[in-house]
C-alpha cells in the first residue's frame, strides 16, 4: 500500500528543536534543522543517526527545506551540512537566505566567544552551507528532480517564513513551520489554497493556548514605557532587526503623537543600515501575490524617532532607544545597557528570546549582579521587562488552517510528552480525518489512497454495464476483468480480446482435465445420472445440464463417466474445465458424493 512516513527527529522530549524527516514516494526530505537552545551538549542537535549511523547524509536525503530564520528551525544547519555532511539542495525563501547567516554568525560568536565552546561550526562553515541554498519564491513550483516538486506559501510569523507543499506523483504533504493566522502590523496572516494534501504537518506547541490580544500586549508595552518616561527614566529596547522593531517604532510614534509626549526616541545607526537592506528584501517579498495588511510607508519617516548617536546615552532626562544586537551580548545595546543599568528609574525591555550565555538571558533569569570583562561587576538596578510579541497559531488558528488546506490526515509535532487528546478529538470530530501525534524519534506511517487515473475503453464499459448489478462507488468497489495497458505515461483498460488484437497475439484456450476414481456397481449411464441428480440438488443456482451424448455440464465443467478397464465396479470420472477457477472450487466443495469414496488424481494439461 502506498504510504508516507513522518519522523520528528531529535532526542529528548523538549520543545525547541524542529527537524522532521518525511519519506514520500521514495523520496526523503528533511524539514527544518533546528537547534535546541536549552542544551549545551549534543542534545541540542537533531539525532541524525536515525538516517544513517555514520557518514554523510547526501545519499539519504533528496532535499532539505528551511521554513524560517529562527534558530530553533535553522540553528543546526551548518552543523548538519558541514560537520555531519550534506551536499544536496537546501531550499528556503529569499529573506530567510539573507537573514539566516547573520543570525547563525551571531549565535556562533556567542557560543564560541562567550561560552568558550570548541566543537562548534565556524564562520566558514556557515558560508559554505549557504552556498548550497536555492532560494524559493512564493507560490512557485520548484522541481527538485523529475518526481519531487515543492512550493512555498506565506506563513506570516516572521519575515520570510513559509509553509511548504511537497508533492511526489499524486501524494503530497504540507509542512507549516511556524505560522500565524492573525495579521500583524507588518506581516499578513498565513494563507494556503485547498491543496488537499495527504498529510498536513503542523507544530502544535501553542495549540493548547488561547492568545491574549495584541492590543493588551501593546498596552502593556506602552504602559511600561510611559511609566519610565514619566519618572524621568531611560528605556532601552534591544532589537535584532526590523520587523518587530518596526512594529514597536510605529506603536511608540502613534502613542507619542496622541499623548503629546516630548521625550526623544532614537534608534541606533547599525539598525538603519540593516533596515535599508531588509526594507528592500521586504518589498520584493511582499510584492508577491499574497494576502497581507502592512503599513505602506517609508520606514524612516518618523516624526518622533531620530537616529542615535552614542553621545546621547549620557544626556540627562528621559529617552527611549532601540539598539542592536537583540540579546545584549555585544555592541551598542550592551554599551548603553552598561551605562544605564545602575539607575533604578531606567528600564530595559526584552522583546524576545535570549540565548544562554548572553547578558539578556542572565537578566531575564533574574540575575542582578553581572560579571563583565576584567572582573568588573555590574549591579543591575534598572527594571527588566520581558515581553513577548512573537505570533504563533493557537488552537483556533490550527482549525482555521485545516479548514483552508483540507488535508486528508493531520499530524501534530510537539516536543512535549504531554498528550493532546482533546485537540486530537476535536480535529477528528470536526473534520473526520485522522490526527497523529508522534513523539520525537517515533515514525508515523500514513497509508495514502492515491488515485491513479486510467482510461477505460467504451466497449469494456458497455460490457460491464450490461452485466447489471449496482454501480461502483468508493465504499463498494466492483471487480472487473480487463487488461491494463501502460503506454508512456498513460494507462488504459481494455477487454482481453481488444488487447490481444492490439498486441497482434492469438487467443489460446486452456482446458484442464482430471480423473476421479470411484466405486460404483451401477452402469456408466446410471452413475452419470446419479452424479447429475446429486449436483443438481447441491449446486443450486448453477447451470447444470445432462446432455444426450453422455456428459454432464456444470457451467463450463464437463463430466464423463467410463468404466475402468480392469474392474467394471470402478468408475472413472473425467472432469475437464477451462480456466475458471471460481466455479471449480465450488464444484469441489459440493462434489462429495454420499457413500462414495473418491480418489482424486489430477493431471496437468
Amino acid at each position, binding site marked *: 500500500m502506498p504510504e508516507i512516513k513522518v519522523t520528528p527527529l531529535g532526542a529528548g522530549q523538549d520543545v525547541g528543536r524542529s527537524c522532521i524527516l518525511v519519506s514520500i514516494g521514495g523520496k526523503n526530505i528533511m524539514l527544518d534543522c533546528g537547534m535546541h537552545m536549552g542544551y549545551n551538549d549534543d542534545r541540542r542537535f537533531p539525532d541524525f543517526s536515525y538516517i544513517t549511523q555514520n557518514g554523510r547524509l547526501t545519499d539519504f536525503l533528496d532535499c532539505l527545506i528551511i521554513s524560517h530564520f529562527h534558530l530553533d528551525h535553522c540553528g543546526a544547519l551548518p552543523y548538519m551540512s558541514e560537520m555531519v555532511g550534506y551536499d544536496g539542495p537546501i531550499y528556503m525563501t529569499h529573506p530567510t537566505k539573507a537573514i539566516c547567516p547573520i543570525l547563525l554568525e551571531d549565535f556562533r560568536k556567542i557560543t564560541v566567544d562567550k561560552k568558550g565552546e570548541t566543537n562548534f561550526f565556524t564562520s566558514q562553515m556557515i558560508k559554505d552551507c549557504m552556498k548550497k541554498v536555492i532560494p524559493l519564491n512564493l507560490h512557485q513550483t520548484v522541481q527538485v528532480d523529475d518526481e519531487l516538486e515543492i512550493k512555498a506559501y506565506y506563513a506570516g510569523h516572521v519575515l520570510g517564513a513559509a509553509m511548504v507543499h511537497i508533492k511526489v506523483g499524486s501524494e503530497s504533504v504540507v509542512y507549516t513551520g511556524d505560522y500565524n493566522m492573525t495579521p500583524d502590523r507588518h506581516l499578513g496572516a498565513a494563507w494556503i489554497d485547498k491543496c488537499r494534501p495527504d498529510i498536513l504537518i503542523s507544530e502544535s506547541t501553542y495549540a493548547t493556548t488561547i492568545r491574549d490580544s495584541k492590543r493588551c500586549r501593546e498596552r502593556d508595552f506602552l504602559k511600561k514605557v510611559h511609566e519610565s518616561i514619566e519618572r524621568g527614566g531611560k528605556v532601552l529596547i534591544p532589537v535584532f532587526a526590523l520587523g518587530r522593531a518596526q512594529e514597536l517604532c510605529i506603536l511608540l510614534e502613534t502613542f507619542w503623537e496622541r499623548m503629546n509626549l516630548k521625550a526623544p526616541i532614537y534608534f541606533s545607526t547599525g539598525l538603519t543600515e540593516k533596515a535599508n537592506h531588509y526594507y528592500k528584501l521586504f518589498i520584493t517579498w511582499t510584492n508577491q501575490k499574497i494576502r497581507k495588511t502592512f503599513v505602506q510607508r517609508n520606514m524612516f519617516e518618523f516624526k518622533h524617532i531620530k537616529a542615535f548617536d552614542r553621545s546621547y546615552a549620557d544626556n540627562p532626562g528621559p529617552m527611549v532607544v532601540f539598539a542592536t544586537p537583540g540579546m545584549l551580548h555585544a555592541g551598542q545595546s550592551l554599551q548603553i545597557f552598561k551605562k544605564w543599568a545602575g539607575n533604578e528609574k531606567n528600564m530595559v525591555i526584552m522583546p524576545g528570546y535570549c540565548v544562554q550565555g548572553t547578558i539578556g538571558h542572565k537578566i531575564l533569569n533574574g540575575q542582578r549582579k553581572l560579571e563583565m570583562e576584567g572582573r568588573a561587576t555590574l549591579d543591575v538596578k534598572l527594571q527588566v521587562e520581558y515581553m513577548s510579541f512573537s505570533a504563533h497559531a493557537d488552537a483556533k488558528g490550527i482549525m482555521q488552517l485545516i479548514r483552508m488546506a483540507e488535508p486528508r490526515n493531520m499530524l501534530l509535532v510537539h516536543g512535549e510528552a504531554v*498528550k493532546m487528546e482533546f485537540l486530537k478529538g476535536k480535529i477528528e470530530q470536526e473534520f473526520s480525518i485522522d490526527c497523529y501525534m508522534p513523539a520525537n524519534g517515533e515514525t508515523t506511517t500514513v497509508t495514502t489512497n492515491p488515485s491513479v487515473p486510467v482510461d477505460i475503453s467504451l466497449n469494456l464499459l458497455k460490457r460491464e454495464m450490461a452485466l447489471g448489478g449496482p454501480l461502483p462507488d468508493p465504499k463498494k468497489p466492483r471487480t472487473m476483468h480487463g487488461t491494463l495497458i501502460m503506454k508512456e505515461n498513460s494507462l488504459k483498460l481494455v477487454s482481453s480480446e481488444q488487447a490481444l488484437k492490439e498486441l497482434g497475439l492469438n487467443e489460446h484456450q486452456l482446458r484442464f482435465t482430471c480423473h476421479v476414481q470411484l466405486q460404483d456397481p451401477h452402469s456408466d449411464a446410471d452413475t452419470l445420472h446419479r452424479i447429475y441428480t446429486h449436483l443438481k440438488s447441491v449446486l443450486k443456482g448453477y447451470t447444470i445440464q445432462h446432455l444426450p451424448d453422455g456428459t454432464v455440464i456444470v457451467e463450463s465443467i464437463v463430466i464423463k463417466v467410463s468404466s475402468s478397464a480392469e474392474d467394471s465396479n470402478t468408475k472413472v470420472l473425467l472432469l475437464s474445465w477451462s480456466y475458471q477457477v471460481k466455479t471449480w472450487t465450488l464444484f469441489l466443495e459440493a462434489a462429495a458424493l454420499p457413500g462414495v469414496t473418491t480418489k482424486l488424481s489430477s493431471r496437468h494439461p
Partner: protein
Amino acid sequence: GGLTFTFDCSAQNHVTSKLSFTVFYVKLYTEIHKPFSFRYKDLHVYQLEHPTQVLEWTSGNSVCVAGYSQSKNEILELRLPLKLLADENKSLCAERDFKVSHGGFTDGPVRCLTHIPGTRCAVTNDGLSSDLQVWDLGGEESDVIRRTGSIKGKRSASERGSRIAARPSSAPQVLHGAQISDVQLTELASGETLYKLETDSADPLSSLQFVSDTVFLAGCCNGSVYVADTRTSAPPQLSHSPSSAESVIWWTDAAAGPHPSSRRVIRVSSSGQAVVSDLRNLGGAGCQAQLDVQTPGRCSQVKVSWAPTLDDCISVSGFSGVVQIYNTRLWGAEPQEARPLFEHRGHAVSSQQTDDSVPTFVTSHIWHPERPRTLLSAASDGSVHVWDWVDPNRQGGSPTP
C-alpha cells in the same frame, strides 16, 4: 488597514450640569491626558471560538467555560496566564495566554456549571430540563473532560433549567432544582436524594447557593428568597419579593465570608432596582439603590455578586456589555440613583460581534477568590476578559496591589 489605537482614558463618561464650564474643560483635559494605565493594573483580552455563559473556578488559577449552542459544545478548563498570577517576578514573565489544560464535548448547551470543591468533578445543566450531567475534569494523565454520569431532576422539560450549588465541604453532594418546590440535595456517588425542600410554591429559581455547609439560600425569579437547612425537614424561611411588579425578574447573591456582617443578601431586578438585606432578617430594613444600568428590562443573564474580599462591594452584569462595580456602603434606606465605583466597558467597546442588531452583552462574570480586584468576564461575542481594576478612590500614586 489603518492603525487603530484606542485607550480608555476617562473613568467617568458623565458630565453633570453641576460642573461649571471651566471646571469641566479642565477635568476633561486632565481625563484625556491622565496616564491611561490608571484604570487597570492588569488587562487581558481573549477570544474564545464560541461564547460561554458559564465561568466557574476549578482552582485558584483555573476556570471552566462551556458553549451554549443548540447542539454540540465544548467544555474547556483554562489556566490563567502566569503573568497575571506572578506577583513577585511579574516583569520577567512574558506568558500572557490562557492554556487550555483540559477539554471535552457536550451534546447540548451548558447553561449552568458547578465545580464540586475538593474534587475534579463538575456538574452541568443544559437549561432544557432539570437533569444534570456529571463530568470528570481530567487529571495529569489525560487532557480530556469526560462525562461520567447524570442525575435525574424532577422536570423533563424546563424553560430555564436548573440552578446548581455544590455543598462546600463533606462528600460530594449537589443541591439543584428548576423551581423552588423541586430543590433537592443529591449525593453524587450513589445518586441518592438526601434532602428535599418542602414547599408547594412553583416559582422558578434564579439562584441557588450554600451560605454554610448545610444552610442554603434559594432566590426565585419573582424576588422571593427562601432560606433552609438541609439537616432539617422544617419549612424554609421565606422572605417575600421587594416588589410586586409582575414582569420584573430578580437575581440574588448572598455574601460569603467569616464576618457576621458579611452575611448579607443582595437582590437585583431587571428594572435595575437593588435591595440589600441581612440574611438573618431578610424582610427587615436594609439599604437599596437604583442602579445605573443602560437598558433596564432588556436582560436575560444578569449576574450579581458580592466581592469575596472587598467589603461592601458588589458587581453586576448582564444588562449590557458592561460590568459595573458598586460600593453599597454609600446606599441608604431610600432608593436613590447609585453611581458605579468602576465600569469595565471592554466587551462593549471592542466587540467582535458580527450581527449588529443584537448588541454584545456580558453573559457572566466572577471574582477571583483571593486577589481583591481581579475579575473574569465573558460576553456573547465569545470574548473573555481578565482584569485587575484600580480603585479610583485610592488613586494618586502607584497602583495598589
